[in-house]
Structure formats: structure tokens, C-alpha cells
């Protein structure tokens, strides 16, 4: 658990990660709030808030009397979201660090190609 951000956000992100990386397939059930809370050792209300956030975004939905499930198309939506954020979340810091070290963008591009091989 990161100290710098609200826990419920971190819960939501963890669940999103699980969905994007395929650990939580679409239409599968996620652990209950109490299970999450017990496992992560956090307050169930906080866990609920994190789940609620994803419900609001349409990533999860509730089946009455059963539990929370991953919505259809959730993964695709999350991937799209992350692509948009990719630039500021990963590229900007990468460029800033490269600049500090005196690596020009063109050099950087070459490094990326090399590493990707």
C-alpha cells in the first residue's frame, strides 16, 4: 500500500491491473469486499469504495445476491484508457530522465528499438 494516495484508488488500480493482464477475465466474479478487506488488511468500507469506483466507470457490475463481476468489454475499455494515459504516465518521466542524463530523443528511440529486440 502506497502512502501517497488514497487506498481506495489503489484498490481500483489493482483490480484494473488484474483485468488488463487477464487475471480477472470478463464475466468472472471478483472477491467480495470483505474478502478483499481481509486479504489486504484494510477497512471494508475502503475496499467497497474502490470497487464502487469501478462500478461507476462500468468496469464492474453487480449481480444481485451473488456479487461483483467484470463487465463485458471492460478490458478493452481499460486498455484504451491506459493508452491515453501512457504518454503522460510513462513517456513524460522517461523523457525527463533521459534529458537529465543527456540522452537526445533520437538516441532514446534507438535505445528503445534495441531493447525491444
Amino acid at each position, binding site marked *: 500500500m502506497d502512502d501517497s*494516495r*488514497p487506498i*481506495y484508488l489503489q484498490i481500483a488500480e489493482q483490480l484494473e491491473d488484474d483485468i488488463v493482464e487477464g487475471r480477472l477475465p470478463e464475466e468472472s466474479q471478483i472477491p467480495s469486499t470483505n474478502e478483499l478487506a*481481509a486479504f489486504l488488511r484494510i477497512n471494508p468500507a*475502503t475496499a467497497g469504495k474502490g470497487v464502487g469506483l469501478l462500478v461507476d466507470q462500468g468496469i464492474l457490475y453487480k449481480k444481485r445476491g451473488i456479487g461483483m463481476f467484470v463487465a463485458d468489454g471492460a478490458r478493452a475499455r481499460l486498455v484504451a484508457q491506459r493508452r491515453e494515459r501512457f504518454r503522460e504516465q510513462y513517456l513524460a518521466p522517461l523523457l*525527463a530522465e533521459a534529458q537529465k542524463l543527456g540522452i537526445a530523443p533520437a538516441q532514446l528511440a534507438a535505445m528503445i528499438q534495441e531493447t525491444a529486440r
Partner: protein
Amino acid sequence: MSVIRVQNLSKRYGRSSGAVQAVAEASFTLDENRIHGLLGRNGAGKTTLMQLLTGQEFADHGTIEIFGENPVENARVLDRVCFIKESQRYPDDFRVHHVLSTAPRFFADWDADFADELVERFRVPVKRRMKKLSRGQLSAVGVIVGLASRAPLTFFDEPYLGLDAVARQLFYDVLLADYSEHPRTVVLSTHLIDEVSNLLEHVLVIDEGRIVIDADADELRGSAIDVVGTRTTVEAFTAGREVLHRAHLGSLATATIAGLDEAGRAEARAAGLELEPVSLQQLVVRTTGDTPGGPADRTNGGRA
């Protein structure tokens, strides 16, 4: 729905020069069915506040409403309250099983099976005299009573003193699990903030009798951030911002800033400053400490 409502509560011990203002004009509201943390240094007023709320101490002035009524000598309210304090005294002739057999009479929701289970998990010797228990075992008994009572309003006053790290974690785990299944209002006072910070939903910080922080735990988390860099950069950046704490080592300086939004953080990074998270414990320490850069320095802009 608020279960506790306090206005201008004050309590002083002693007279004139030796007097201690244990609680000073405290006003706050606690919502039902949440886990509230009452944080502060030793002697800050946590225990006195809880004793006032449970009618064990008498306030000098101010109002307290618990379940909508004044709790003092009020059986209707007190029947629904359980207050476990670390210094609870027991009759000399009591053994552990006497505590476990008398407590249920006072708590209508007592769960005997749960109590038995906890006795085993905390390894409490049931036949031993209360006087002969170790500090940790005494705390364990208090914790067991507090948990098994299932009282709608349960106060835990530093209940883990003497418990080793394993037993403490057990307490947090059991509290969480039971709270999930049997929601109730829990007020937990502690100075081991980092250990419980994930459990809390709402935080009250008390310092020298005054409530200095009253906030949602999630909002509080991440509300303060450390900026680290050269003194000049830090000072330039902090001008006009609320600074909670400053420190410096040679030409390196750090400042704890409250409420830095995304734009502010980007600005900091652009200025070449590093951003570091501030844990709840650090936040509380910096707000209530009397080290240089403490409360006296909590002004916009502040001086170095």
C-alpha cells in the same frame, strides 16, 4: 448518521499552576458504523476524551451526545457502549474466567463462542488470577471483551500495549473480520499509527487537548507530500504554500506541503524537485511535534 456529537468539550485536571488542560474545546462528530482513529502523542488527551465520552469522567463544560443523548449516568446509552482501556483494574479475587462470565451480563450482544475462540487464539490462561497476568495477557483480555461484546459503540484505548507484533496483527485482523460481519462503530486510540492506518476510515488527531485534524482517512492520505531538493529550489517552491514541516541537511532541504494537487506536483517535478510520500504517521508526527518546523511553522510561506 452521527453516533457521537461533541461541542466545546473541556476538562481540566488540577488547579492553578499545576493544572493540565486535558481536553480543550473539542468539537467533532463521529459517524455510525465506521472505524475511527483517535491519534495523538502520549498525554495528548486521548484517554481523557474517551473517559468523558463514556461518562467515566465529568466534563468542565461542553456537550456530548451519544446516540442522541448525554451519556453521563445514562443507562440507555451506556448499555450500548463498551470501553476497554489499557489501565482497566479488576478485583483482586478475579480470575480470567470471572471476567468472561461477568462481562456477558453487561453486553446484550455478547458472543460466547467468539469469546472462546479468541481466548484460544490469544492464548490467555483462563484460570489465572488477573493480578498475575502479564501486560500482554491483560491487554488480550481487554481486547477479547471489547471484540466479543459486539457493542454498537466500542472504544479501544491503546488496547495493544504489551501485545507483541504477532498478537497485534491478530487483533487488527480479528477486528477487521468481525467488523465486516458485524458492523458497528469503533473508536481506536493509538500512537502506533502506521500499523492501523489501513483500518481507519476517519481520523481525529488530538494534541494537548485540542483537535488538530478531523478528516477522512483516505483524504488525509496523500494530502501531504514531501518535496526534496536544494534549499533554494525548495524555498522558492514553497513560497505561498502551506508548509507543515521543514528540514534541511547541508544544502539539501525537504518541506512537507499540504494539499499539493496534480498541477502543483507537475510544477514541482519540473522545478527538479523529488516528491516523496508522507505516511499518516509522519503526517501526525509533523502536525503535533514540537520540533522546529512543527505547528509554529505551519503558515503560508513560512520561514526557513
